[in-house]
């Protein structure tokens, strides 16, 4: 079988959370990396391949994004993908989640995978929804937040936590599964894998190569128009204590609780 893993480049969390001292605001520029949630999807693909219950011919990492997104693909390959596909086209810039899902689905159609895996959310956009959009365009069944995945022949047994507890769902492949971060503990890439990642095949495609209707993608063509951000209502900042002397810290906590009659 062939497994495609959808990955995304996101701002590096370590950098993202830095405050720019000149403005007092988050500094979101700088380093980008593979979305950490996606590493669970790659690991899930690797475990299916290594598990031996089915024969996996290929694991292909697929992304959509600007030229810098290649780095996310290199990381994905270093974690075990055999090759990668990079959908990159200026026409795609500013696509909303529905347009992005459509574009990714068109890219996947050319690969014709038996299983599409992705992470539960991106570290930056937090839409949680791309898998359901992709599945609909591919006419495949889908499930999100899967934390246990067993494959026997063409049948997947999936477990996930939903509104009322844990659900078990059986799904026939081909399917699109978004995995929760509890599904596995992703491995670290070996130095050899990191060094070799750039040598693995990387196919860069544009909208024309995968038959994307350009009138359905890009910021202007997206059906949900996101407009400029405003600041949320200011909430009084809380008191922060750095614990240096624990006895003193605890004394402060107790005093704080006592003042609010919480003891």
């Amino acid at each position, binding site marked *: 079988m062939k497994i495609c893993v959808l990955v995304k480049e996101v701002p590096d969390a370590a950098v993202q*959370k830095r405050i720019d001292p000149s403005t007092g605001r*988050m500094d*979101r520029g700088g380093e980008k990396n593979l979305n950490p949630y996606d590493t669970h999807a790659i690991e899930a693909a690797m475990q299916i391949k290594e598990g031996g219950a089915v024969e996996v011919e290929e694991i292909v990492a697929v992304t959509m994004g600007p030229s810098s997104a290649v780095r996310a693909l290199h990381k994905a390959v270093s974690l075990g993908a055999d090759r990668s596909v990079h959908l990159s086209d200026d026409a795609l810039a500013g696509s*909303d*989640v*529905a347009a992005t*899902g*459509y574009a990714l689905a068109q890219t996947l159609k050319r690969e014709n995978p038996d299983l599409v895996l992705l992470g539960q959310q991106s570290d930056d956009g937090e*839409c*949680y*929804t*791309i*898998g*359901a*959009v992709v599945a*609909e365009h591919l*006419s*495949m*069944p*889908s*499930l999100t*937040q899967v934390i246990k995945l067993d494959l026997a022949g063409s049948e997947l047994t999936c477990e996930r*936590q*939903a*509104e009322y*507890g*844990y*659900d*078990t*769902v059986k*799904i*026939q492949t081909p*399917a699109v599964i978004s995995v*929760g971060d*509890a599904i596995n503990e992703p491995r670290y890439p070996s130095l050899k894998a990191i060094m070799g990642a750039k040598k693995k095949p990387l196919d860069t495609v544009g909208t024309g190569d995968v038959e994307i209707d350009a009138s*359905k993608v890009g910021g202007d063509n*997206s*059906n*949900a*128009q*996101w*407009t400029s*951000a*405003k*600041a*949320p209502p200011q909430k009084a900042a*809380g008191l*922060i*204590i*750095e*614990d240096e002397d*624990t006895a003193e*810290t*605890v*004394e402060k*906590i*107790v005093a704080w609780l006592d003042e*609010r009659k*919480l*003891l």
Partner: protein
Amino acid sequence: MSNILVYALHYDGAINKNSLGAVSEGAKLAKELGGEAHAILVGENIPQDLAASLGEYGAAKVLTAEGPDGLGQPVVDAMAAAIGSGGYKYALFGGGLLGFEVGAGLAARLGAGVAMEITTVRAEGGELVAERPILGDSSISEIKYRSEVGIIIGRLNAFEIVKGGAGAAPVEAISYEASPQSAQATIVTRGEQRGADVDIEGANILVAGGRGLGKAEGFELCTDLAAAFGGSSAVAATRAVVDAGWYPYAGQIGQTGKTVAPKLYLAAGISGAIQHKVGMQSSENIVAINKDANAPIFEFSDLGIVGDLNKILPKLTEAIKAKKGS
């Protein structure tokens, strides 16, 4: 026509609270648009009176469609069929896992715009404008729709439940054609409760533990602290540690767990992801202990302690015991 179709999730003979909020919100918005809010339920043998009861929350009509419980794609099929029959300008969902799946699938099916984690919706010039907090709630984006149908997926607990409707609503059973993909999934078990039945909803004081506890045994620190507080206190947990099997599902806060608002919420080793925040942000006092100074929880806690919970919690437990004993 500017009608709004609202998905109502139901389970075990009751409508989901977030769906009740979404129906209430839909009714309010439809009135402003000069249309009606209709609710739709999808499931096996949906009780008529349950469907009709949504009239009390403002639904002018309730559609019911026979289909498997607990799966998203059959709901997409049913809602697409209802919307295809005309009159709907928006589809609205409360927070929750199925709402996200159905809303996104429906957007793809209809070629409609979709926005999620919406906290506020307003009518403006005959259109709806949705607001979504972004970048860890540090900023708010506005979303307008240019498609014939706009899809709005609310954040958990964003929409207030308002019981002010006209009583029982008329119920109409609809039929739809199942898509090929819907036939490829079957639910085997639904709503399995893992772990003991702990009660956290009645507690005035909650000590909640997250991944930062390091291991299942780490919960003893939380249990000891809750016991020191005494009275109406209990221990709660995040989704991550429940999935890991460290704590029972019944004690879980957030998106797919409970929503609480105790007098004191003490979060130990919890980073404060949105999915957790939505379940506890209305707590009167929030205290967070986390070793990562950059953890989002410090952005919405009243008292934040940057430090090692393994050092702080035992001493805090002793200090509270001493204080209470004095």
